[in-house]
């Protein structure tokens, strides 16, 4: 029989040690770092500040950065849970506060732990399209990321020396509790396996070869109208009648010499460009498809817009945050930036944006505006 003291010591495992914490910390630094920078990239794509010009190329970059964003977030879930398990004894250390600096360090653990858990929880919920809150997910996720990363910087500063030391072959800092190397390897290996399993179970929405085993993926590449998934339906966007209206005209106006009003037939009679481009969602799914339609730059020339002009692409959607998107001069100049009329050799399905949708290289899916009604040139 264990003694009463032993029986109560749930911290008896020698894995509550510095070296295991150090390895898991490195893994979390890498995964949270990847998440942060790929998340910033998506933010720059969607809401570029004045000093930044979002590039049109490489075409598949956004799909890769967002695939990495979601995969590294998934991988971080077991790492964070394991890390918090390893260091849990320190939560109840005594005395709770020893100095002003110590208080500041511990205070910064609240945004670190709460922020880290919230980032992973809210991200995974977003991928499942589950919003058990009233705030707007992208904004809350974005600003909490800064708070979390700031707290991570504090933590890394405080622990860098001890981490470096603990990862040395022969640590110099006193290490009263120490796991046997085999124990530690098995533990860390198990955590890594959990991360790997979670990534494989969810990444199939973007890595199509893994789709058959990605049993928790939100999407299956190739499943959807015209073999491409849909994020917003025509019914959901309330455009069914307007999109089918024979009186539909695409309007090009604003800073142009000739205002254009083009019917679907007018657009079909123009020279068509075929482009193989991915549609890539911030939620971590993507599919490559063949799009065919009119180059945006051709319309701009037709309308007599300046070469440096930019444009707002507006949808028939009566409302919604994503009813319009922006094209910068570089994106307009790209030969593959199209107003597409066809997808995979068929007339665009209404859920893909019939009669006309925007598709361009290296753009977030939500900015590939569907049911386009107007180009406003400036």
């Amino acid at each position, binding site marked *: 029989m264990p003694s009463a003291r032993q029986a109560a010591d749930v911290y008896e495992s020698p894995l509550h040690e510095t070296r295991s914490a150090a390895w898991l910390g490195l893994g979390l630094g890498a995964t949270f770092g990847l998440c942060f920078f790929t998340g910033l990239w998506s933010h720059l794509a969607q809401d570029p500040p004045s000093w930044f010009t979002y590039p049109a190329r490489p075409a598949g970059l956004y799909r890769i950065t967002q695939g990495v964003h979601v995969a590294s977030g998934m991988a971080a879930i077991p790492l964070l849970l394991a890390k918090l*398990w390893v260091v849990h*004894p320190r939560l109840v250390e005594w005395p709770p506060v020893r100095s002003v600096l110590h208080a500041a*360090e511990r205070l910064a653990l609240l945004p670190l732990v709460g*922020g880290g858990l919230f980032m992973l929880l809210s991200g995974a919920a977003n991928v499942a399209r589950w919003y058990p809150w009233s705030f707007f997910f992208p904004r809350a996720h974005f600003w909490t990321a800064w708070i979390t990363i700031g707290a991570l910087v504090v933590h890394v500063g405080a622990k860098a020396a001890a981490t470096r030391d603990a990862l040395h072959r022969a640590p110099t800092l006193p290490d009263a509790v120490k796991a046997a190397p085999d124990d530690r390897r*098995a533990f860390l290996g*198990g955590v890594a396996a959990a991360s790997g399993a979670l990534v494989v179970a969810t990444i199939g929405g973007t890595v199509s070869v893994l789709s058959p085993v990605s049993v928790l*993926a939100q999407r299956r590449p190739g499943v959807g109208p015209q073999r491409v998934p849909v994020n917003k339906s025509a*019914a959901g966007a309330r455009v069914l009648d307007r999109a089918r209206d024979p009186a539909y005209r695409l309007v090009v106006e604003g800073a142009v010499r000739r205002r254009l009003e083009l019917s679907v037939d007018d657009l079909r009679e123009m020279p068509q460009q075929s482009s193989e481009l991915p549609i890539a969602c911030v939620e971590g799914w993507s599919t490559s498809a063949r799009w065919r339609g009119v180059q945006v730059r051709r319309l701009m020339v037709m309308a007599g817009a300046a070469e440096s002009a930019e444009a707002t692409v507006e949808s028939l959607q009566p409302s919604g945050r994503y009813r319009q998107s922006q094209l910068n001069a570089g994106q307009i100049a790209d030969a593959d930036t199209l107003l597409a009329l066809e997808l995979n050799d068929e007339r665009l399905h209404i859920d893909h944006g019939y009669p006309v949708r925007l598709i361009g290289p290296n753009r977030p899916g939500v900015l590939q505006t569907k049911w386009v009604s107007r180009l406003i040139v400036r």
Partner: protein
Amino acid sequence: MNADPLHVHGQPATTSRRGLVIGLAMGVPIIAYGIRGVLIDASDTHPGELARWVVGVAVVHDALLAPIALVTAWGLSRVVPAFAWPAVRAGLLTTVVLCLVAWPLLRGYGQDPSIPSLLSRDYGTGLAAALGAVWLTVAVWAAIARQRS
């Protein structure tokens, strides 16, 4: 509790004072930038509710889920044969994270009848198959460990 300031449950203090000062100097402005953003975008971020979530998940994890995990791991490590414990522990962690991520999918919270391509899998069967594969791996790992021990 351990009164020795250098040793917490047998572990030495690991904070570098100089590193912490540098970390605070660099990290606090970043935290402040994030908080400023939350407040400027208050109509989108709903600061009060967001703060409840961030603090809430930390409290629920640290005060409820972590203790349950600690006690469960501590208890099972006494019941499960030592050679099998690392494999079982890894299997438990993998099971927990798969179930967590599967939960909203199983419940179908994000379903939208107008978008059949969204959440179009049979997640119950998928989760069962994944857990079957996980525990088969655990059994193989444990069997190999037993042979070696």
